[in-house]
């Protein structure tokens, strides 16, 4: 469950790093804004009901557009500069988006009801599983397979992968690298916005969820391998397992074991379990 959400979020982060070599702190902010936007859309449409699906799509698209604007107006000017500047730019966005969200939606908790279509639950292996959770658990692998197919089988995906190997060469061959980058960043923001929207029926929306999620997404991406699609998938599964079983082994220190895992991976294989060494 948690693992699938983390996968949705982390895959966008990993995509942007893999292609653009930018570690995007603002990814968590996109996730949070996606949640708020979905809530807002629900208010406009109707407080509950199947409008949730429309609201989720609306939020994801809205965040994709926001991501496109950020990439075009800001990030674009810092390519080729030290990665410190890119890190700091995305951190500046974290600060700004965090406060904008507080200004618009306040600091209270907001929540969205589960869509009626998936409101029920089912008994599996003696536990009660809401349909909505099953939906998320199915959606994660679906997006993983879909994304993998697009990246490996379509011509656009080939272009993206080529750009991640050698930006200049792809440009020299006549591809519009700028457009690829904007497209990637928008796709990544879309995933962040979508996961933010889809998390709303499960968790209340609070300020600070951006900073909390981005650290988790980082760990997942580092474990799996920055830029590796399946790596991110397995990374999120491993993260979920370590977090759950860490509680059994060292009660209270599950967070510690997750960070320790991240350190061990970075020390032994900085490019992650499934990544490839670059530069």
């Amino acid at each position, binding site marked *: 469950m948690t693992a699938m959400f983390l996968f949705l979020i982390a895959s966008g982060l990993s995509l942007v790093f893999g292609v653009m070599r930018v*570690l995007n702190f603002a990814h968590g902010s996109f996730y949070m804004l996606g949640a708020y936007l979905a809530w807002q859309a629900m208010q406009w449409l109707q407080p509950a009901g199947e409008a949730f699906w429309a609201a989720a799509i609306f939020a994801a698209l809205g965040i994709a557009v926001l991501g496109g604007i950020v990439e075009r107006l800001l990030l674009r000017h810092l390519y080729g500069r030290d990665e410190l500047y890119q890190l700091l*730019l995305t951190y*500046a966005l974290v*600060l700004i988006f965090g*406060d904008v969200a507080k200004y618009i939606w306040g600091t209270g908790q907001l929540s969205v009801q589960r869509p009626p279509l998936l409101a029920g639950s089912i008994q599996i292996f003696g536990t009660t599983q809401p349909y909505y959770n099953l939906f998320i658990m199915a959606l994660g692998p679906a997006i993983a397979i879909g994304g993998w197919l697009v990246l490996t089988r379509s011509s656009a995906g080939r272009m993206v992968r080529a750009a991640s190997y050698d930006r200049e060469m792809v440009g020299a061959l006549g591809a519009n690298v700028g457009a690829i980058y904007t497209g990637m960043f928008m796709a990544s923001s879309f995933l962040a916005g979508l996961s933010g929207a889809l998390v709303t029926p499960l968790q209340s929306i609070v300020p600070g969820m951006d900073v909390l999620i981005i650290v988790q997404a980082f760990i997942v991406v580092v474990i799996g391998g920055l830029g590796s699609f399946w790596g991110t998938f397995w990374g999120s599964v491993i993260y979920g397992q370590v977090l759950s079983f860490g509680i059994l082994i060292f009660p209270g*220190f599950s967070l510690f074991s997750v960070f320790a895992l*991240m*350190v061990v991976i970075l020390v032994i294989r900085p490019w992650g379990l499934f990544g490839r060494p670059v530069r």
Partner: protein
Amino acid sequence: MNRRRALLARSVPWTLLVFLVAFWVPWLGSRYDTFLGTQIAIDALFAASLNLLLGTTGLVSFGHVAYFGVGAYVCAILMKTYGVPFIVAFPAAGLGAALFALVSGYFCVRLTRIYFAMLTLAFSQIVWAVAYKWNSVTGGDQGLPEIPYPDMHWMAAVPGLRDLGSGDRFYLLTLALVAVSLAILWRVVRSPFGRMLTTIRDNPERAAAIGLNVRAYELAAFVAAGAFAGLAGALYGIFNRGVFADYVFWSKSAEVMIMTILGGMGYFWGPPVGAFALVWLNQEITDYTQYWPFVLGVILLVLLFVFPGGIVGGLVAGFRLVRRHLAGRDA
């Protein structure tokens, strides 16, 4: 004429002047000014220690707060739990932070660029996770409140200082310790060792080719930076009368980085200037609005796109422009 004026400007011991002015704050300013002054002094040391990595060696550490936090906890635990006097606990804080920097840095300097940044971030989050959960030692999410002030009765023996409150005395103590630490850092940066670090920043391949052990130098810089961050942390814990896990959260690393860049990471005095500017701005702006992070974000954007050299970088560029102007008129 101009050259003489330039020489005159250079011969003024500006640093000494700043510290002399700062020394009088408890008598000239309000209690609040002293409070801000203490914070600025501590942040100045913290940011300057980061700049040893960032500006001098070119290592982007995104987890510098870990060493600040280790120093704060070591000093606080020694003083509060074991009743160790400050004169022992303070160096111990620096030593503890340096030791942790040695262990974590050993792994970090093996990685390059973005991976280095991530590993430092991971180590700082480990410190955070331990601080947050190890209730019996660090107080967990409750933190360690009520850390005693260091014994400052000896100051009563100094004629002018008898009437000062403990906050004012702690300010003077902090100021003195920060001044000494900054002086040592200055010596380090200006030493042949510091020059080597700059060589590594500018061209690591070349540095390795002329026989420099790049990793060893980077590790040494990492340990030194960690030690001074630890000293700053020790002072900060006492200053705030408590150490809490929040101090070690990763966003604090970003804050001190903003200070460093705001001041100008290419200059030794950049980070202290940045610390002064940021603390002062924070205090001014929070009077008007609660949205300080927003303002900070905008400042950061302006810095990145307009003034990548920071305040000191901007001033230096401005002075050069003026001097060229004057020189042109003379000729």
